[in-house]
């Protein structure tokens, strides 16, 4: 469905399914369509982000080789100038081709600001500087008007929070934050209809913020590969696996609704057997988290998410092999137990859906 006319035809047909009249603003829909005619593919999004980040790194190398970083006052001012100019470019031009330059200037601005803020370091702590960046990224989200900006701002927001924990040696908060992200992701993914209807800004930010949180979550798991065996002390980490299991359980519950599983007994049986199959995998929270992300992405057909979670899954499985805290024998038995349980589940499923088997070949 590409044009305004076919859309209006669709609305007229949709009207027939309603009892109350359907009202819609033809003019506004037409304008919105003309603005989205320049469609970005994933390749172009990646190119923009890549170009922006690499060029800003080159610029920072320039700042350091030229000795400009010693002049903190100028760095601060120049950083602010870059931030403002990048925002102006972003606001003034709706064209995708200005993305690389504006995102590059934005990243340079942020980095110059970080150098410049050293200058007030004697009076405020590093934590305050991190908080300043959290505020800047949040403000950026309010101003941002396209995918790349929303995505980069969400990513930087999470990085600032993460750094805040890191400089305060509050490592136990990482798992707490990861758990929080589980909730944020479930909320964002499963309430799409609600969020995009709330405000025009939310509609605009929905895709980039979702992708931003998704990527941040994987990145945080990468830097914080916790297994429950590593934390036998009283830490929140002990509960992270429970959170992720609840997350997966909740998704299975939603999937059961699609299949119209009716009796409580069946529901409990499905949930129970899935939990038993996943239980051995508690040794690697990261693998479990990737399964959670895969189900979540598949639920809403979020392709980028599906690809990222499969890649993450393979990566964390290989990483699990090299985890030295558990012996290989132990790890292998855990994997085999889980694997056999999944095969048993597969066996039951193929007994239950025998007819479709042939049609799918």
């Amino acid at each position, binding site marked *: 469905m590409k044009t305004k006319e076919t859309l209006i035809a669709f609305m007229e047909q949709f009207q027939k399914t309603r009892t109350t009249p359907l009202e819609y603003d033809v003019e506004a*829909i037409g304008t919105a369509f003309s603005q989205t005619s320049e469609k970005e593919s994933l390749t172009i999004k990646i190119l923009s982000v890549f170009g922006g980040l690499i*060029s*800003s790194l080159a610029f920072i190398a*320039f700042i350091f080789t030229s000795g400009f970083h010693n002049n903190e006052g100028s760095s601060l001012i120049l950083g602010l100038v870059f931030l403002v100019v990048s925002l102006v470019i972003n606001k003034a031009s709706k064209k995708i*081709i200005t993305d690389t330059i504006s995102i590059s200037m934005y990243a340079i601005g942020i980095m110059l600001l970080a150098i410049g803020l050293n200058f007030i370091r004697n009076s405020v702590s590093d934590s305050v500087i991190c908080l300043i960046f959290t505020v800047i990224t949040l403000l950026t989200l309010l101003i941002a008007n396209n995918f790349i900006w929303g995505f980069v701002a969400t990513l930087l927001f999470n990085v600032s929070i993460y750094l805040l924990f890191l400089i305060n040696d509050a490592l136990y908060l990482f798992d707490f934050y990861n758990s929080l992200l589980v909730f944020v992701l479930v909320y964002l993914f499963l309430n799409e209809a609600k969020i995009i209807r709330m405000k025009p800004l939310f*509609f605009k930010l929905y895709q980039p913020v979702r992708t931003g949180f998704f990527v941040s979550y994987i990145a945080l798991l990468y830097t914080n590969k916790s297994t429950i065996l590593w934390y036998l002390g009283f830490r929140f980490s002990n509960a992270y696996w429970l959170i992720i299991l609840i997350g997966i359980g909740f998704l299975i519950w939603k999937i059961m609704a*699609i299949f119209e599983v009716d009796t409580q007994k069946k529901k409990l049986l499905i949930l129970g057997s899935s939990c038993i199959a996943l239980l051995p995998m508690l040794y690697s929270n990261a693998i479990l988290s990737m399964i959670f992300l895969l189900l979540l992405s598949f639920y809403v057909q979020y392709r980028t998410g599906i690809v990222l979670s499969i890649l993450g899954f393979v990566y964390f499985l290989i990483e699990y092999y090299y985890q030295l805290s558990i012996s290989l024998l132990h790890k292998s038995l855990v994997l*085999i137990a889980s694997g056999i349980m999944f095969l048993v589940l597969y066996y039951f499923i193929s007994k239950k*859906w025998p007819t479709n088997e042939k049609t799918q070949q």
Partner: protein
Amino acid sequence: MEKIDRETIGILSQHSNLTEAEVAALLQANCYTNKALWEKFIRLFLLALGVGFSVSGVVFFFAYNWDLLSKFVKLSIILLLLITSIAVILVPKTALLVKKISLTAAAILVGVLFAVYGQIYQTGADAYDFFLAWTVFCTLFVIVGDFAPLWLLYLVLSNTTFGLYMEQAASDWPKFIILFVFLSFNFSALILATYFTKKKPVVWFLYLLALATTGLATFGNAMVIYDGYDAYLPLFVGLTLLVYAFVIWQGWQTKTSFYLALIALSCIVLITTFMIEKMDTDRLFLTLTIFIVLSVTATIKGLLTLQKKWSNEN
């Protein structure tokens, strides 16, 4: 009713009095996974996790080298598993997907068998002949299975064998000859895969192969820039041009910007390498910043123009 996409639903929800429940229902019906697709997914998911976890468990198990098990028991377990996974494909009623995944498991078990054999008789686990044996003896499974993940495993194995051979047995070969062989092998794989999947392309596999081939070509040419002239250099550069031409042609044929972006990125990396090598530090980084921003912007502009042209043609 005709299907509508996410973006359209979003625009509609903004400019009409559709209720939240209606927007949710539209998303569910047009964009989200339906029952039939979930059924397919759950099947594949359970099977892939089941076989994947079990086989990795077996790999981990034998990597542990448990001395409580005798040689005989170790080899028997693996052979038994190997025979079972091959027997699965001989059962006529088995679903095609189960057969293919089972063959993939068998191909991995062949490696485990050789590795354990090597463990027992001290033939060395990193030796190229171990990987050569693995590659050779799973060839049949790969051809019979004709399954993209299995082909991927095969390519990884062949490249590893060749890499180790170069390191352990042919370390005196000229550098560009080694690169040339690597590149031509993967390039041939790309051409063959493109040709044989013409009717039903396995997109992710082709993307991965194109990425690997272009990556190799870029890496090799970056070395050309750093190391300077070599007698075998024209051969390698010539092959690179062929790779570029093929990938661009592929992008043009399939109207996919990914392939074209790959070549553009490769050129940007090479020019950047050239600048790093030739320029002095004073001017280098500022020039680089400007160059990268401009070249990436130009690439995006080019791709957008092409996309527009392609979508008009459809």
